[in-house]
């Protein structure tokens, strides 16, 4: 066979592989949506879950998921940004740094159940946070930090050294240069990392079972004082998230419509991740534009 023919064959194979991957995702998505969406209704999305009768909703769980996601991101984004900056800009290049980098990477492939138990013993019991949103958010942070830090460091490293020199030569400190020049330029990569992190957090169950807990006490949506026990904002209340809910009704749930509820919850979950993806991408592009002055011509 000639080189040109090989080229054709290889290109075809590559196209097929790509189509296959898209097909796999399409299948997964369609499977989830088709089996779940018919059961999704406004009542389902906003309603209270039930512990043993049919017809429960996922309102509280959905709210909990979002609240936990926001809290975990508020804690982990600045931390990972700082740590990523340190590793990329300040850390001396020696074995200690590479050990730290290694350890962080190992942490990122730790089974989440171990993170969950760690969170349980440390946050829930030692710090006396109990089964609470706070414990959950901290456990998610532990879970999310390594990946995010690595992504931040990689994205910063991808920005060419001359950008930094430009800043230094103007009498700017390294910190200013990083924060105002390098980070904005690296933003698309960092945003991607954050999207992936958010997706992972949103779907995480094992790390939350022992930390944020599995019960969803009725919330009083008219009282937003974070100190009131039934307030949605109270970080000390126990909170079951959507992913935990799916896990729970499938494992020990005795509601008669468990299959439908879990299918519908999965559909909502995946749709939400999809939405998050789009939103983060949009916000990221806008932010990138604002910080770098790269604006669309009107």
């Amino acid at each position, binding site marked *: 066979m000639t080189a040109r023919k090989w080229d054709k064959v290889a290109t075809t194979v590559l196209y097929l592989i790509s189509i296959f991957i898209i097909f796999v995702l399409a299948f997964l998505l369609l499977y989830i949506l088709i089996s779940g969406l018919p059961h999704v209704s406004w009542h389902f999305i906003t309603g209270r879950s039930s512990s043993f009768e049919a017809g429960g909703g996922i309102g509280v769980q959905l709210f909990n998921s979002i609240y936990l996601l926001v809290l975990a991101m508020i804690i982990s984004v600045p931390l990972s940004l700082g740590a990523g900056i340190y590793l990329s800009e300040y850390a001396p290049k020696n074995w200690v740094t590479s050990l730290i980098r290694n350890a962080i990477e190992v942490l990122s492939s*730790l089974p989440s159940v*171990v993170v969950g138990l760690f969170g349980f013993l440390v946050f829930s019991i030692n710090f006396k946070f109990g089964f609470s949103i706070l414990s959950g958010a901290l456990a998610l942070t532990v879970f999310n930090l390594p990946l995010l830090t690595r992504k931040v460091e990689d994205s910063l490293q991808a920005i060419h050294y001359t950008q930094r020199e430009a800043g230094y030569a103007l009498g700017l400190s390294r910190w200013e240069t990083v924060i105002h020049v390098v980070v904005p330029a690296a933003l698309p990569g960092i945003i991607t990392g954050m999207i992936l992190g958010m997706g992972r957090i949103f779907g995480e169950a094992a790390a939350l079972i022992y930390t944020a807990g599995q019960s969803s006490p009725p919330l009083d949506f008219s009282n937003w004082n974070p100190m009131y026990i039934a307030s949605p904002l109270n970080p000390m209340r126990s909170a079951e998230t959507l992913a935990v809910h799916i896990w729970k009704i499938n494992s020990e749930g005795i509601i008669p419509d468990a299959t439908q509820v*879990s299918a519908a919850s999965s559909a909502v979950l995946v749709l939400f991740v999809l939405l998050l993806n789009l939103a983060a991408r949009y916000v990221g592009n806008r932010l990138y534009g604002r910080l770098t002055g790269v604006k669309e011509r009107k």
Partner: protein
Amino acid sequence: MNNDEIRASLLKRSRASKNEIFGKVISGICITIIIGVVVSIFYFVASKGLATFFTDKVNLWKFLTGTVWNPSTNDAQGDPQVGALPMIVGSFSVTFLAAIVATPFAIGAAVFMTEISPKLGKRVLQPVIELLVGIPSVVYGFIGLSVVVPFVRRTFGGSGFGILSGTFVLFVMILPTVTSMTVDALNSVPRNYREASLALGATRWQTIYKVVLRASVSGIITAVVFGMSRAFGEALAVQMVIGNAMLLPGNLISPASTLTSVLTMGMGNSVMGSLSNNALWSLALLLLIMPLVFNILIRWIGKRGAMH
């Protein structure tokens, strides 16, 4: 500015240098916190996991090579039955198989995204891959249970639960990670390599195969190894499809178990501090050490790659 003013300004500590200290402190605090987290997890898992050997006096060799896992009962010699070999074998089997299946797909997709059609790649494949990461492992597990397991049962016989099903599920789960890291590796091959090759009359495929892939071998291996350590630590989804029988797997379609599946199942049912619980933590310790080994492997490959 006159001479004296400039001299004075040079000798004064500027806002920028204060700012620099501020930055160093802030980012230093962040990294310290993360190191703190890392160290405490390591300490935490190690202290509990090692208790099996130091407090409960289990023989390490027996632990690694024993084939019976039944911590609540003792064997003929009166030692607790904590043989982790079936799980170790199970974990490694699914991990390696998933990596073997995923690698060609990941490389193919990455080559497509970087070399064949960057536009389609960025518009279609990249979001697709990011979305795949976002699907929670619970959902993967249930799809595995309702689609993969019956498929394997019908096609290959057996109950459908086993290493093969686990491999399929893990394959889809690590594909995005390996692909996106491979994309990074391919992108770091300088553009002029490609141009030089094409200018010499090589076809696109020859360029990809002989130049681009060769130049990024160490990056691709890193991606695969990283995917493997992901697969190694995955729990919920694998647990649902592998069958969780603590038997040495004889074939790919009989129920087997992995370190994570046994760990996840057993944790809630054992009492903190008891031998059954400590033995589970020893499994967790193994899980922690294994990615470390994978990591050292990555570094080693990276170094060898750098030498070429």
